């Protein structure tokens, strides 16, 4: 049975992963908080039917779906909130110093502009460091599908940001990245 204590344990372990995925998918800290809240509320409400020993996959799936729904709802309100959305999508990743903030923002926006499942797979693999198996379980894909989608996502992102090899900010990677 899922007690509040067990729920707390899951939340302590995985809240940051959910938040990271939502943050890079939606390119907005406020929206990422809303989605994170929604995902964990859903986890609590359906706790009787979820195997907490394999909850990572459920959380990945729920977060990805919640982000898709959130983007749809946001698109419906876009006419009234376009100014605010522009400000929110230009927010830099918090608590991180990079040599080029502009490049970081470009990359974050480019990731958020990818289609699913390319976006989720890219964030899960390249930023959260999830294994192919974890991603496959979470998104209910085969491992070969995950690899193909990842290669394609990287190619699309690189094409969107090209030419990266000429960007001075990343040609000398001595800049420190501070993660709180």
């Amino acid at each position, binding site marked *: *049975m899922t007690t*509040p204590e067990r*729920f*707390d344990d899951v*939340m302590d372990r995985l*809240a*940051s*992963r*959910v*938040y*990271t995925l939502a*943050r*890079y998918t939606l390119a907005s*800290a406020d929206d990422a*908080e809303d989605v*994170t*809240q929604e995902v*964990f*509320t859903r986890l*609590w*409400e359906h706790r*009787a*039917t979820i195997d907490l020993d394999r909850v990572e996959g459920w959380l990945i799936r729920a977060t990805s779906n919640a982000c898709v729904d959130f983007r749809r709802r946001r698109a419906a309100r876009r006419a009234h909130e376009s100014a605010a959305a522009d400000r929110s999508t230009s927010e830099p*990743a*918090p*608590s*991180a110093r*990079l*040599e080029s903030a502009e*490049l*970081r923002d470009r*990359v*974050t926006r480019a990731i958020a502009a990818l289609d699913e499942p390319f976006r989720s797979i890219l964030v899960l693999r*390249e*930023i*959260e*460091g999830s294994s192919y198996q974890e991603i496959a379980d979470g998104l209910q894909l085969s491992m070969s599908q995950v*690899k193909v989608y*990842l*290669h*394609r996502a*990287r*190619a*699309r*992102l*690189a*094409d969107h*940001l*090209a*030419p*990266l*090899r000429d*960007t001075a900010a*990343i*040609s000398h*990677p001595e*800049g420190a*990245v501070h*993660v*709180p």
Partner: protein
Amino acid sequence: MSLDDPALCGIPAESIHALLLGDLEPADAAALQSHLESCPHCRAVHQDAAALDRVFDRLPRLDCPPRLRASLRSIPRRHPARGPFRLPRTVPARRLLGVLTGLAAAAALGGFLLHRAGHAPPAVTAPPPEPASLAKVEQAERQLRAALALLEAAGRESAQRATEKVLAEGVASPARRLRLALLGGNRRAERPGPAQTAPPGTRL
């Protein structure tokens, strides 16, 4: 260089990313590595892919903000379990439900009988409760218990399958019949007169 302008060599950019990630079979990796030495287009794609890796290294995994974490911790308190679809699977809870249902039905029946007894004229022996009314009460009670058992079974399978239809047809309808049966008995008890006509078809 763009994905819209395929290289003359025909090598897709995804293959070069797969090479960089180590996702190619050894023979394919060796062949592509050899190709890079002679294809400027693919070399450029490879350089972009490597640069992308350096970008990813600088995108941090984010910590859940403390304020959000505190809010998540309060979810169980803000969303307590409620409703018939959230019956715990423990046996004592199911037995308790059965006992409560029986007690409620017994209390309703007892109230009905006392009400009839209280309104009987003192000079006339109160007639026994009509078999038809008692039968209706008992039938409605059985239907209600069966409906609650079905509802609980549906909740065990999946809380989501306990639809409004089950609520309307499985619970509300028998409950309504029970109420009508009880009200029908009370109305007959209030009418003056010694004898009451039994409903048609009633066996006396």
